[in-house]
């Protein structure tokens, strides 16, 4: 038994499914971890994962990582907390992760008590909350339109640490959480065990991406040791290092403000924090503050907006490349005219976008150099998949054989696929950037337990 004045959280990876090495987890357990915690979600890859309730990573990748963590949990008896299951953390994504966990338990003969935390919200209920003015917009959004809520396919509310703490106090070995702030999952056990709020939340922020706060971001995760007025951070792998620079620089990451971080129930303020090397590999942080505010939960919502069909071609012919901007404008005009004369009003509200990769596809701003080759992407957006595909098919001959001028012989650009048109399905959009005020951090959260040990002995 390691006696310690700190509460130590082993953070094996920045995202469940990104890859965990059992040796790193073993090292963290041997170094006295009191909990294993990591995040499994993000909005970073776009709205589709929330709208479709699908995981960004493969089932096999999630299972491989989760199996390592569940075995470590069973062996060490320290709790395992996973936040924002299945990328979006919506109810279906939590259930998907639950089923993987149950499969692992059965295959490995494990009998953990698993708590499931659900934070998906019914759109109609959020609309009512908006009508009674319990929902506020966050910049850059300035309004609350109650109808925006019912348009969403899925809405999730980002949990704080309280539902995790309650589940652990009720005896959970493993907590599989719906959408949660990255930080809260890591801060939960130190907060539950009475460590300072500033240190616990700051440690959570620094360790949220695993090894990203170390000199070799890809070399395993980190351990944070949270004390009463400080925390220490060090990498799990002995070859890796944390320095005051790598640790403090992580406050910049994916955060619009490097000093303040708004969380459910408060704001982490690190403007007075100081970072000091304890040795070659670990860093001590002091001076972090957590300023309590009325409790709010951030809402995320996404919905399908339209459908897209794409086509791709390669152009090496120097003539169109020499004057690419005007060439693409002429092509766009010709494509639009063709759609108008063949489909007419039936096309409805649609968009044709030409994106020359190798020239200016990312910025969309005119460039003044001549590329040697481009990949020209055609994107048709329409109200239905069928119409997007009809538009693509209508544009096919012009897109693949557009001459540089009217009298020129018809070229054939290099098209890689047959059929040429690729149906992309729905395009999704984030619709919400709001917070909801709650009286109790758990009022929008539903918790259920699965007790495998009891089931096995029943």
């Amino acid at each position, binding site marked *: 038994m390691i006696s310690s004045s700190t509460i130590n959280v082993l953070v094996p990876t920045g995202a469940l499914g990104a890859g965990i090495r059992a040796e790193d987890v073993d090292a963290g357990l041997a170094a006295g971890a009191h909990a294993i915690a990591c995040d499994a979600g993000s909005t970073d890859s*776009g709205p589709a994962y929330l709208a479709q309730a699908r995981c960004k990573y493969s089932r096999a990748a999630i299972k491989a990582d989760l199996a390592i963590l569940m075995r470590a949990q069973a062996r060490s008896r320290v709790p395992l907390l996973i936040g924002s299951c299945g990328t979006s953390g919506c109810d279906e994504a939590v259930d998907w992760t639950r089923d993987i966990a149950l499969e692992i338990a059965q295959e490995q003969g494990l009998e953990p008590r698993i708590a499931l935390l659900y934070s998906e919200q019914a759109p109609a209920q959020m609309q009512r909350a908006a009508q009674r003015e319990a929902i506020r917009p966050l910049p850059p959004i300035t309004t609350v339109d109650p109808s925006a809520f019912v348009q969403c396919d899925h809405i999730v509310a980002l949990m704080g640490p309280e539902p995790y703490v309650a589940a652990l106090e009720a005896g959970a070995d493993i907590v599989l959480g719906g959408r949660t702030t990255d930080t809260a999952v890591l801060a939960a056990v130190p907060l539950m065990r009475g460590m300072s709020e500033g240190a616990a939340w700051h440690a959570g922020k620094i360790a949220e991406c695993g090894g990203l706060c170390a000199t070799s971001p890809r070399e395993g995760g980190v351990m944070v040791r949270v004390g009463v007025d400080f925390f220490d951070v060090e990498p799990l792998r002995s070859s890796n290092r944390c320095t005051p620079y790598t640790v403090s620089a992580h406050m*910049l990451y994916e955060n619009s403000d490097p000093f303040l971080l708004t969380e459910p129930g408060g704001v982490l303020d690190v403007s007075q924090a100081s970072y000091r090397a304890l040795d070659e590999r670990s860093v001590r942080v002091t001076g972090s503050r957590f300023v309590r505010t009325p409790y709010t939960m951030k809402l995320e919502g996404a919905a399908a907006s*339209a459908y897209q069909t794409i086509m791709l071609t390669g152009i090496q012919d120097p003539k169109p490349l020499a004057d690419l901007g005007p060439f693409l404008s002429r092509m766009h005009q010709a494509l639009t005219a063709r759609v108008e004369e063949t489909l007419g009003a039936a096309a409805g509200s649609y968009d044709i976008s030409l994106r020359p990769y190798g020239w200016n596809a990312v910025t969309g701003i005119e460039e003044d150099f001549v590329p040697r080759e481009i990949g020209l992407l055609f994107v048709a957006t329409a109200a239905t998949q069928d119409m997007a595909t009809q538009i693509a098919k209508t544009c096919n001959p012009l897109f693949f054989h557009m001459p540089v001028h009217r009298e020129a012989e018809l070229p054939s650009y290099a098209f890689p696929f047959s059929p040429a048109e690729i149906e992309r399905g729905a395009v999704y*959009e*984030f619709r919400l950037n709001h917070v909801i005020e709650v009286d109790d951090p758990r009022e929008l959260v539903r918790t259920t337990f699965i007790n495998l040990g009891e089931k096995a002995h029943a």
Partner: protein
Amino acid sequence: MPKLMDVCRHVRSKNAGPFWITVDLFFKDAEAYSQHVDALALQPEAVARVFGIQSSAVKRFPVPDLDVLKLSFPRKVPQGGVLERDMHGGQQYVRLLSIEL
């Protein structure tokens, strides 16, 4: 006049949630930082012109301990819409590299 890429050892951009882009300029050293952090070309007005947004929306955070200037601004449209070209905002910094300080 030096370009931004000449005085920074690393520049990156990323989403800060689906509605914001944040850009981190890591200057080469304390000298490069103090010499250029207040450059006109790195003021909100100039940055807003590069990205085609309102200057009042640009947030600017000097971080002297790290020799970093952080710039954050709202996306013109939320991440992932119909015309999205950079889902993670990961290439937005490139437009700043050749600005003259």
